[in-house]
């Protein structure tokens, strides 16, 4: 299944509250089994939502004051017990997680340290910026994918990268989403997939696609994040 089909499926799943993954027998168990004990890293360009995602995962309130992250902030190891639609929980951990800045100089200095030892790297893309300034946002995405190609050798050989298209609520509007907004997002996802495929080349198989997400809306975050977890479990390179 291509990225676009999966992306639309996830959006519609959230809009219609249809538990699509329940259709597959034993799938929850598969998710639970794969994610248990896994370690994650979060990277992405400036103001893409890295801080907020850590706050969501740690179930902390969103920061009242936003600050440009510079240097490396070590996060206390924390466990995540994420609820699945069937009421079960997936337990994984953020071990030796490091919060880093998104500027190019910070990427070149600190991102590899943040990604060392990670099983899953979440790469955040700002959907709002992608719509408002597509050219420069795509250029930065291209540069970051090149950075990944250069640095993959320093990461776990089994590492999986998953893209999260953040600020989807701002871009699409609150559910139910309009067809025109959804169509415009479809074009973006197609563009992102093409860019990733062209840049990552043989490493493209390490990327499990793009899932919409919203850090500002707790309900949407929970739904979309559960979908991202199931997509990664389903599509990760075997």
């Amino acid at each position: 299944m291509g990225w676009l089909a999966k992306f639309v499926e996830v959006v519609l799943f959230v809009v219609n509250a249809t538990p699509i993954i329940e259709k597959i027998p034993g799938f929850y168990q598969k998710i639970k089994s794969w994610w248990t004990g896994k370690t994650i890293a979060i990277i992405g360009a400036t103001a893409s939502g890295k801080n907020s995602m850590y706050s969501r995962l740690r179930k902390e309130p969103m920061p009242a004051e936003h600050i440009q992250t510079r240097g490396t902030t070590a996060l206390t190891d924390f466990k995540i017990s994420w609820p699945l639609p069937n009421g079960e929980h997936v337990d994984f951990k953020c071990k030796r997680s490091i919060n880093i800045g998104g500027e190019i100089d910070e990427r070149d200095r600190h991102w590899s340290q943040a990604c060392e030892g990670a099983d899953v790297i979440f790469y955040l893309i700002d959907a709002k910026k992608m719509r408002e300034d597509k050219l420069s946002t795509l250029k930065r995405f291209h540069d970051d994918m090149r950075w990944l190609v250069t640095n993959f050798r320093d990461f776990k050989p089994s590492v999986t990268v998953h893209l999260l298209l953040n600020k989807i609520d701002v871009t699409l509007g609150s559910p139910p989403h309009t067809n025109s907004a959804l169509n415009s997002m479809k074009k973006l996802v197609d563009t992102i997939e093409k860019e990733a495929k062209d840049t990552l080349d043989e490493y493209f198989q390490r990327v499990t696609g793009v899932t919409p997400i919203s850090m500002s809306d707790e309900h949407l975050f929970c739904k979309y994040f559960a979908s991202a977890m199931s997509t990664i479990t389903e599509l990760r390179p075997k």
Partner: protein
Amino acid sequence: MKISWILPDREQTGTMLLEHGGSIESLHIMLNLHILPRAFILGIPEELFLANRSQPVFFLQYARLGDGLGMFAASLEAGKDVGGRTVVLTLLIEQCEPAMLKSEIITEIEIPTSEVRCANNLLSELTKQFSERTSPLNSLLQAIEQFPERQTFASEVLRRSANRPDWMKKKRHGIESDIG
């Protein structure tokens, strides 16, 4: 000695800019990032903003880079960017011997045209700290002299940094001491 300014990224472009002698270039192109120790931060770490504060955050660092030379940074909170995030202005002195760090150096510093008010505030704070014997700046300079084997020095204690400086100014009950 080379004096530059890292300008605040007020437009959230994701590319930090370095102003030197009137020209502005991308920081990651102009500065050899690979020679910098990880503990040397090009700005102010987030944790320093999280404490209750009545004054703008001011942060000083020094890193030895070999041949008796090093890099000095003085960073000051510089308001908000377009998204409402707090950003920072940094004065960077490259190829700098610790002995060069005296109040007279301030007269040699050119102010960046785009950040005049903030740069003046930063230089005023530096001037003030040069004149106070127990200021964070003078403590840092004393530590550089006292601990020649240490590479990185910071004017504040960084508890949450993944890459801590070798020496940090400790503030407890008004007593300063080395905790590196």
